[in-house]
Protein backbone atom coordinates (compact mmCIF):
# COMPACT_ATOMS: atom_id res chain seq x y z
CA UNK A 1 0.00 0.00 0.00
CA UNK A 2 1.27 3.44 -0.86
CA UNK A 3 0.15 7.02 -1.09
CA UNK A 4 1.04 8.96 -4.21
CA UNK A 5 1.73 12.64 -3.75
CA UNK A 6 0.01 14.52 -6.56
CA UNK A 7 0.55 17.97 -5.04
CA UNK A 8 2.77 18.42 -2.00
CA UNK A 9 1.20 21.46 -0.30
CA UNK A 10 3.46 24.15 1.15
CA UNK A 11 5.69 22.13 3.48
CA UNK A 12 4.17 18.74 4.21
CA UNK A 13 6.42 16.43 6.21
CA UNK A 14 6.29 12.99 7.82
CA UNK A 15 6.24 13.37 11.62
CA UNK A 16 5.73 11.18 14.67
CA UNK A 17 6.10 12.15 18.33
CA UNK A 18 9.75 13.02 17.81
CA UNK A 19 13.36 12.02 18.31
CA UNK A 20 14.33 12.84 21.89
CA UNK A 21 17.77 11.98 23.27
CA UNK A 22 20.11 13.65 20.80
CA UNK A 23 19.56 17.35 21.42
CA UNK A 24 22.87 17.59 23.32
CA UNK A 25 24.68 16.67 20.11
CA UNK A 26 22.69 19.11 18.02
CA UNK A 27 19.92 16.88 16.69
CA UNK A 28 16.61 18.43 17.66
CA UNK A 29 13.46 16.77 18.94
CA UNK A 30 11.51 17.13 15.67
CA UNK A 31 8.07 15.48 15.61
CA UNK A 32 4.67 17.10 15.26
CA UNK A 33 4.42 20.69 16.46
CA UNK A 34 0.96 19.86 17.88
CA UNK A 35 1.58 16.46 19.42
CA UNK A 36 -1.87 16.25 20.99
CA UNK A 37 -3.53 16.54 17.57
CA UNK A 38 -1.01 14.08 16.09
CA UNK A 39 -1.82 11.45 18.75
CA UNK A 40 -5.56 12.08 18.25
CA UNK A 41 -5.32 11.50 14.49
CA UNK A 42 -3.57 8.17 15.08
CA UNK A 43 -6.08 7.01 17.68
CA UNK A 44 -8.97 7.80 15.33
CA UNK A 45 -7.63 5.39 12.70
CA UNK A 46 -6.59 2.67 15.16
CA UNK A 47 -2.84 3.37 15.11
CA UNK A 48 -0.42 3.63 18.01
CA UNK A 49 -0.38 7.24 19.25
CA UNK A 50 3.17 7.72 18.01
CA UNK A 51 2.76 6.32 14.49
CA UNK A 52 4.07 8.52 11.67
CA UNK A 53 1.54 10.84 10.01
CA UNK A 54 1.71 13.77 7.61
CA UNK A 55 1.97 17.27 9.02
CA UNK A 56 0.62 19.83 6.54
CA UNK A 57 1.10 23.51 7.27
CA UNK A 58 -1.32 26.22 6.03
CA UNK A 59 -2.15 24.28 2.85
CA UNK A 60 -3.03 20.64 2.28
CA UNK A 61 -1.43 18.21 -0.17
CA UNK A 62 -3.29 16.24 -2.80
CA UNK A 63 -2.88 12.49 -2.34
CA UNK A 64 -3.96 9.35 -4.17
CA UNK A 65 -4.40 6.06 -2.32
CA UNK A 66 -3.31 2.80 -3.96
CA UNK A 67 -5.33 0.75 -1.48
CA UNK A 68 -8.21 1.06 1.01
CA UNK A 69 -7.40 2.84 4.29
CA UNK A 70 -8.97 4.62 7.23
CA UNK A 71 -7.96 8.30 7.40
CA UNK A 72 -8.40 11.11 9.92
CA UNK A 73 -7.41 14.78 9.77
CA UNK A 74 -6.94 16.65 13.05
CA UNK A 75 -5.29 19.85 14.28
CA UNK A 76 -5.99 22.83 12.06
CA UNK A 77 -9.39 23.24 10.43
CA UNK A 78 -8.15 22.25 6.98
CA UNK A 79 -11.28 20.67 5.49
CA UNK A 80 -10.56 17.36 3.72
CA UNK A 81 -12.26 16.43 0.46
CA UNK A 82 -12.47 12.87 -0.83
CA UNK A 83 -12.82 12.87 -4.62
CA UNK A 84 -14.08 16.43 -4.16
CA UNK A 85 -16.71 15.57 -1.50
CA UNK A 86 -16.24 17.31 1.87
CA UNK A 87 -15.31 15.19 4.91
CA UNK A 88 -15.21 16.24 8.57
CA UNK A 89 -12.00 17.01 10.42
CA UNK A 90 -11.36 15.16 13.73
CA UNK A 91 -13.40 12.23 12.37
CA UNK A 92 -12.30 8.94 10.80
CA UNK A 93 -13.37 8.25 7.24
CA UNK A 94 -12.87 5.38 4.82
CA UNK A 95 -10.78 5.91 1.68
CA UNK A 96 -11.06 3.40 -1.15
CA UNK A 97 -8.31 2.35 -3.49
CA UNK A 98 -7.83 4.94 -6.23
CA UNK A 99 -9.55 7.77 -4.37
CA UNK A 100 -8.01 11.20 -4.08
CA UNK A 101 -7.73 13.22 -0.90
CA UNK A 102 -7.44 16.99 -1.27
CA UNK A 103 -8.10 19.96 1.00
CA UNK A 104 -10.08 23.16 1.01
CA UNK A 105 -8.62 26.50 2.18
CA UNK A 106 -7.41 26.63 5.76
CA UNK A 107 -10.19 27.92 8.04
CA UNK A 108 -8.48 27.96 11.42
CA UNK A 109 -5.21 26.93 13.04
CA UNK A 110 -1.99 26.25 11.16
CA UNK A 111 -1.04 22.57 11.08
CA UNK A 112 -3.18 19.59 10.13
CA UNK A 113 -2.27 15.99 10.94
CA UNK A 114 -3.26 13.39 8.36
CA UNK A 115 -3.19 9.88 9.85
CA UNK A 116 -3.58 6.75 7.73
CA UNK A 117 -4.32 3.32 9.23
CA UNK A 118 -1.01 1.45 9.37
CA UNK A 119 1.03 4.67 9.64
CA UNK A 120 3.50 6.16 7.16
CA UNK A 121 6.15 3.47 7.00
CA UNK A 122 9.38 5.36 6.33
CA UNK A 123 12.54 3.94 7.98
CA UNK A 124 13.31 4.72 11.61
CA UNK A 125 16.28 7.06 11.96
CA UNK A 126 17.65 7.33 15.51
CA UNK A 127 14.41 5.86 16.78
CA UNK A 128 11.99 8.14 14.94
CA UNK A 129 10.30 8.58 11.58
CA UNK A 130 10.12 12.37 11.97
CA UNK A 131 11.54 14.64 9.30
CA UNK A 132 14.29 17.09 10.28
CA UNK A 133 14.49 18.93 6.97
CA UNK A 134 17.29 21.31 7.97
CA UNK A 135 19.52 18.31 8.69
CA UNK A 136 18.10 16.17 5.82
CA UNK A 137 17.37 13.49 8.41
CA UNK A 138 14.48 11.03 8.80
CA UNK A 139 11.02 11.23 7.29
CA UNK A 140 10.70 10.72 3.55
CA UNK A 141 14.25 11.19 2.19
CA UNK A 142 14.92 13.80 4.87
CA UNK A 143 12.80 16.45 3.19
CA UNK A 144 9.34 17.87 2.71
CA UNK A 145 7.11 16.04 0.23
CA UNK A 146 7.31 16.69 -3.50
CA UNK A 147 4.93 15.85 -6.32
CA UNK A 148 5.60 12.30 -7.54
CA UNK A 149 6.69 10.90 -4.15
CA UNK A 150 5.25 7.53 -3.18
CA UNK A 151 4.88 7.11 0.55
CA UNK A 152 4.97 3.57 1.95
CA UNK A 153 2.13 2.77 4.38
CA UNK A 154 2.31 0.05 7.04
CA UNK A 155 -0.25 -2.67 7.49
CA UNK A 156 -2.95 -2.18 10.07
CA UNK A 157 -4.32 -4.98 12.21
CA UNK A 158 -6.85 -2.72 13.92
CA UNK A 159 -10.39 -2.62 12.66
CA UNK A 160 -11.93 0.74 13.40
CA UNK A 161 -15.14 2.11 12.07
CA UNK A 162 -15.82 5.19 10.04
CA UNK A 163 -17.24 8.23 11.82
CA UNK A 164 -15.29 7.98 15.08
CA UNK A 165 -14.96 11.56 16.24
CA UNK A 166 -13.34 13.66 18.96
CA UNK A 167 -15.42 16.14 20.94
CA UNK A 168 -14.46 19.84 20.65
CA UNK A 169 -13.47 20.17 24.31
CA UNK A 170 -10.90 17.36 23.93
CA UNK A 171 -9.07 18.88 20.96
CA UNK A 172 -6.75 21.10 23.01
CA UNK A 173 -6.60 23.94 20.47
CA UNK A 174 -5.80 27.59 21.25
CA UNK A 175 -8.84 29.31 22.74
CA UNK A 176 -9.44 33.03 23.02
CA UNK A 177 -7.70 36.05 21.57
CA UNK A 178 -4.95 36.78 22.20
CA UNK A 179 -3.65 33.24 22.70
CA UNK A 180 -2.01 33.01 26.12
CA UNK A 181 1.33 31.27 26.25
CA UNK A 182 2.51 30.53 29.77
CA UNK A 183 6.23 31.05 30.29
CA UNK A 184 8.73 30.81 33.14
CA UNK A 185 11.37 33.54 33.48
CA UNK A 186 14.78 31.99 32.86
CA UNK A 187 18.43 32.11 33.95
CA UNK A 188 19.08 35.36 32.07
CA UNK A 189 16.07 37.25 33.44
CA UNK A 190 18.51 39.55 35.30
CA UNK A 191 19.81 40.87 31.97
CA UNK A 192 16.73 43.04 31.38
CA UNK A 193 15.36 45.90 33.45
CA UNK A 194 12.33 45.43 35.69
CA UNK A 195 10.31 47.68 33.38
CA UNK A 196 11.32 45.60 30.34
CA UNK A 197 10.35 42.41 32.18
CA UNK A 198 6.91 43.81 32.98
CA UNK A 199 6.47 44.99 29.40
CA UNK A 200 7.38 41.58 28.01
CA UNK A 201 4.50 39.97 29.90
CA UNK A 202 1.95 42.78 29.45
CA UNK A 203 2.50 43.57 25.74
CA UNK A 204 0.53 41.88 22.99
CA UNK A 205 2.81 40.27 20.39
CA UNK A 206 1.96 39.11 16.91
CA UNK A 207 3.23 36.05 15.05
CA UNK A 208 5.71 37.14 12.38
CA UNK A 209 5.64 35.56 8.89
CA UNK A 210 9.05 33.97 9.57
CA UNK A 211 7.54 31.51 12.07
CA UNK A 212 8.28 27.87 11.21
CA UNK A 213 9.20 24.48 12.73
CA UNK A 214 12.53 25.81 13.95
CA UNK A 215 11.12 28.73 15.85
CA UNK A 216 8.18 31.08 16.12
CA UNK A 217 9.06 34.75 15.88
CA UNK A 218 6.87 37.45 17.40
CA UNK A 219 6.82 41.20 16.93
CA UNK A 220 4.86 44.23 18.01
CA UNK A 221 5.83 44.48 21.68
CA UNK A 222 8.22 47.06 23.15
CA UNK A 223 11.96 46.39 22.66
CA UNK A 224 13.58 45.04 25.83
CA UNK A 225 15.94 47.35 27.71
CA UNK A 226 19.05 45.66 29.04
CA UNK A 227 20.93 46.18 32.28
CA UNK A 228 24.36 47.63 31.35
CA UNK A 229 27.34 45.27 31.71
CA UNK A 230 30.83 44.46 30.55
CA UNK A 231 30.42 41.57 28.04
CA UNK A 232 31.70 38.37 29.68
CA UNK A 233 34.44 36.34 28.00
CA UNK A 234 33.07 34.68 24.86
CA UNK A 235 29.97 36.86 24.56
CA UNK A 236 29.52 39.30 21.72
CA UNK A 237 29.18 43.04 22.22
CA UNK A 238 25.42 43.17 21.68
CA UNK A 239 23.64 43.35 25.04
CA UNK A 240 21.48 40.36 24.03
CA UNK A 241 24.58 38.17 23.57
CA UNK A 242 25.70 35.64 26.16
CA UNK A 243 28.58 33.21 26.41
CA UNK A 244 27.24 30.31 24.33
CA UNK A 245 24.77 28.13 26.19
CA UNK A 246 22.25 25.36 25.63
CA UNK A 247 18.87 26.38 24.23
CA UNK A 248 16.00 24.41 25.73
CA UNK A 249 12.94 23.46 23.64
CA UNK A 250 10.48 26.29 24.24
CA UNK A 251 13.14 28.82 25.22
CA UNK A 252 12.47 32.42 24.21
CA UNK A 253 15.49 34.19 22.78
CA UNK A 254 15.29 37.87 21.93
CA UNK A 255 18.13 38.84 19.53
CA UNK A 256 18.85 42.55 19.92
CA UNK A 257 16.02 42.73 22.45
CA UNK A 258 13.43 43.32 19.71
CA UNK A 259 11.65 40.19 18.45
CA UNK A 260 11.20 37.16 20.71
CA UNK A 261 11.70 33.75 19.07
CA UNK A 262 10.27 30.64 20.75
CA UNK A 263 12.35 27.63 19.72
CA UNK A 264 10.22 24.70 18.58
CA UNK A 265 10.64 21.08 17.41
CA UNK A 266 13.42 21.61 14.82
CA UNK A 267 15.41 24.20 16.80
CA UNK A 268 19.14 24.63 17.09
CA UNK A 269 20.38 23.33 20.43
CA UNK A 270 22.67 26.11 21.51
CA UNK A 271 24.08 29.53 20.78
CA UNK A 272 24.83 32.99 22.03
CA UNK A 273 21.53 34.78 22.52
CA UNK A 274 20.13 35.36 25.99
CA UNK A 275 16.81 33.69 26.74
CA UNK A 276 14.22 35.69 28.61
CA UNK A 277 12.41 32.51 29.69
CA UNK A 278 10.83 29.29 28.45
CA UNK A 279 7.30 28.56 27.26
CA UNK A 280 6.00 25.67 29.35
CA UNK A 281 5.67 22.21 27.76
CA UNK A 282 1.87 22.22 28.09
CA UNK A 283 1.53 25.23 25.78
CA UNK A 284 3.96 24.25 23.01
CA UNK A 285 1.22 22.51 20.98
CA UNK A 286 -0.73 25.79 20.88
CA UNK A 287 2.17 27.55 19.14
CA UNK A 288 2.04 24.98 16.35
CA UNK A 289 -1.50 26.14 15.57
CA UNK A 290 -0.77 29.88 15.33
CA UNK A 291 -1.07 31.64 11.98
CA UNK A 292 0.98 34.70 11.02
CA UNK A 293 -0.33 37.96 12.54
CA UNK A 294 -2.21 36.22 15.33
CA UNK A 295 -1.93 37.99 18.69
CA UNK A 296 -0.39 36.30 21.72
CA UNK A 297 0.47 37.26 25.28
CA UNK A 298 3.12 35.64 27.41
CA UNK A 299 1.80 34.85 30.88
CA UNK A 300 4.30 34.54 33.74
CA UNK A 301 4.12 31.29 35.70
CA UNK A 302 6.31 29.42 38.18
CA UNK A 303 7.45 25.79 38.26
CA UNK A 304 4.43 24.57 40.27
CA UNK A 305 1.98 25.99 37.77
CA UNK A 306 4.04 24.63 34.86
CA UNK A 307 4.01 21.11 36.31
CA UNK A 308 0.28 21.32 37.08
CA UNK A 309 -0.38 22.47 33.51
CA UNK A 310 1.66 19.57 32.14
CA UNK A 311 -0.37 17.18 34.31
CA UNK A 312 -3.61 18.74 32.95
CA UNK A 313 -2.43 18.44 29.36
CA UNK A 314 -1.63 14.74 29.88
CA UNK A 315 -5.08 14.39 31.46
CA UNK A 316 -6.70 15.84 28.36
CA UNK A 317 -5.06 13.17 26.19
CA UNK A 318 -6.12 10.48 28.69
CA UNK A 319 -9.72 11.69 28.40
CA UNK A 320 -9.49 11.74 24.62
CA UNK A 321 -8.18 8.16 24.68
CA UNK A 322 -10.99 6.91 26.87
CA UNK A 323 -13.58 8.73 24.75
CA UNK A 324 -12.61 6.48 21.84
CA UNK A 325 -12.75 3.13 23.62
Amino acid sequence: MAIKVLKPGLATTVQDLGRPGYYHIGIPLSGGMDRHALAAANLLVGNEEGAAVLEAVFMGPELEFTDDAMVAVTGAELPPKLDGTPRETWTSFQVKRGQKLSFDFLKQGARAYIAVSGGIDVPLVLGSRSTYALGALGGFKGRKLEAGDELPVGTSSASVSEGRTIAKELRGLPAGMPTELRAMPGLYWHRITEQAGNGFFSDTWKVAPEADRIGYRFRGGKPLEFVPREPPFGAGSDPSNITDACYPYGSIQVPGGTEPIVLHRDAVSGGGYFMVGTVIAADMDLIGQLQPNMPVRFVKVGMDEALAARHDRAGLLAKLRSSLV
Partner: protein
Amino acid sequence: MATQQIFSPLPGIFYRKPAPDKPVYKADGDVITEDDTIGLIEVMKSFNEVKAGAAGKILRFLAENEEAVMAGQPIAEIDV
Protein backbone atom coordinates in the same frame (compact mmCIF):
# COMPACT_ATOMS: atom_id res chain seq x y z
CA MET B 1 -18.34 37.11 -19.45
CA ALA B 2 -18.43 36.20 -15.79
CA THR B 3 -16.73 37.58 -12.71
CA GLN B 4 -14.49 35.28 -10.69
CA GLN B 5 -12.25 35.79 -7.71
CA ILE B 6 -8.67 34.72 -7.17
CA PHE B 7 -8.10 33.52 -3.61
CA SER B 8 -4.98 33.50 -1.50
CA PRO B 9 -3.95 29.85 -1.00
CA LEU B 10 -2.03 30.72 2.20
CA PRO B 11 -2.05 33.02 5.18
CA GLY B 12 0.79 35.56 5.08
CA ILE B 13 1.84 38.88 3.59
CA PHE B 14 0.63 39.63 0.05
CA TYR B 15 2.98 41.39 -2.38
CA ARG B 16 2.04 42.66 -5.79
CA LYS B 17 5.66 43.06 -6.94
CA PRO B 18 8.44 40.46 -7.40
CA ALA B 19 10.84 42.83 -5.56
CA PRO B 20 10.44 46.25 -3.91
CA ASP B 21 12.12 48.08 -6.83
CA LYS B 22 10.25 46.17 -9.57
CA PRO B 23 6.90 47.04 -11.18
CA VAL B 24 3.72 45.18 -10.13
CA TYR B 25 3.12 41.75 -11.69
CA LYS B 26 -0.29 42.82 -12.96
CA ALA B 27 -2.36 45.97 -12.95
CA ASP B 28 -6.12 46.53 -13.11
CA GLY B 29 -7.30 45.93 -16.67
CA ASP B 30 -4.41 43.60 -17.62
CA VAL B 31 -5.20 40.50 -19.66
CA ILE B 32 -4.04 37.31 -17.90
CA THR B 33 -3.59 33.64 -18.71
CA GLU B 34 -4.11 30.76 -16.31
CA ASP B 35 -0.42 30.37 -15.43
CA ASP B 36 0.31 34.06 -14.90
CA THR B 37 1.63 35.07 -11.50
CA ILE B 38 -0.39 37.88 -9.97
CA GLY B 39 1.47 38.24 -6.67
CA LEU B 40 3.44 36.60 -3.87
CA ILE B 41 2.52 35.39 -0.39
CA GLU B 42 5.32 35.50 2.16
CA VAL B 43 5.12 32.93 4.93
CA MET B 44 7.68 30.76 6.77
CA LYS B 45 10.65 32.52 5.16
CA SER B 46 9.42 31.63 1.68
CA PHE B 47 7.72 33.56 -1.08
CA ASN B 48 4.97 31.62 -2.85
CA GLU B 49 3.60 32.68 -6.21
CA VAL B 50 -0.13 33.17 -6.58
CA LYS B 51 -1.28 32.00 -10.01
CA ALA B 52 -4.28 33.45 -11.81
CA GLY B 53 -5.81 29.99 -12.24
CA ALA B 54 -8.01 31.19 -15.11
CA ALA B 55 -7.60 33.24 -18.25
CA GLY B 56 -9.32 36.60 -18.54
CA LYS B 57 -8.89 40.20 -17.50
CA ILE B 58 -8.15 41.67 -14.08
CA LEU B 59 -11.01 43.90 -12.99
CA ARG B 60 -9.46 45.01 -9.71
CA PHE B 61 -7.25 43.93 -6.85
CA LEU B 62 -9.04 43.37 -3.54
CA ALA B 63 -5.90 43.12 -1.37
CA GLU B 64 -3.29 45.86 -1.00
CA ASN B 65 0.43 45.41 -1.50
CA GLU B 66 2.00 44.21 1.81
CA GLU B 67 -1.41 43.45 3.30
CA ALA B 68 -1.73 40.56 5.77
CA VAL B 69 -4.08 38.04 4.17
CA MET B 70 -5.83 34.85 5.29
CA ALA B 71 -6.04 31.58 3.34
CA GLY B 72 -9.13 31.72 1.15
CA GLN B 73 -9.28 35.53 1.16
CA PRO B 74 -10.14 37.01 -2.27
CA ILE B 75 -7.19 39.04 -3.57
CA ALA B 76 -8.39 39.94 -7.07
CA GLU B 77 -11.50 39.98 -9.18
CA ILE B 78 -11.27 38.84 -12.79
CA ASP B 79 -13.50 38.73 -15.80
CA VAL B 80 -13.27 35.34 -17.52
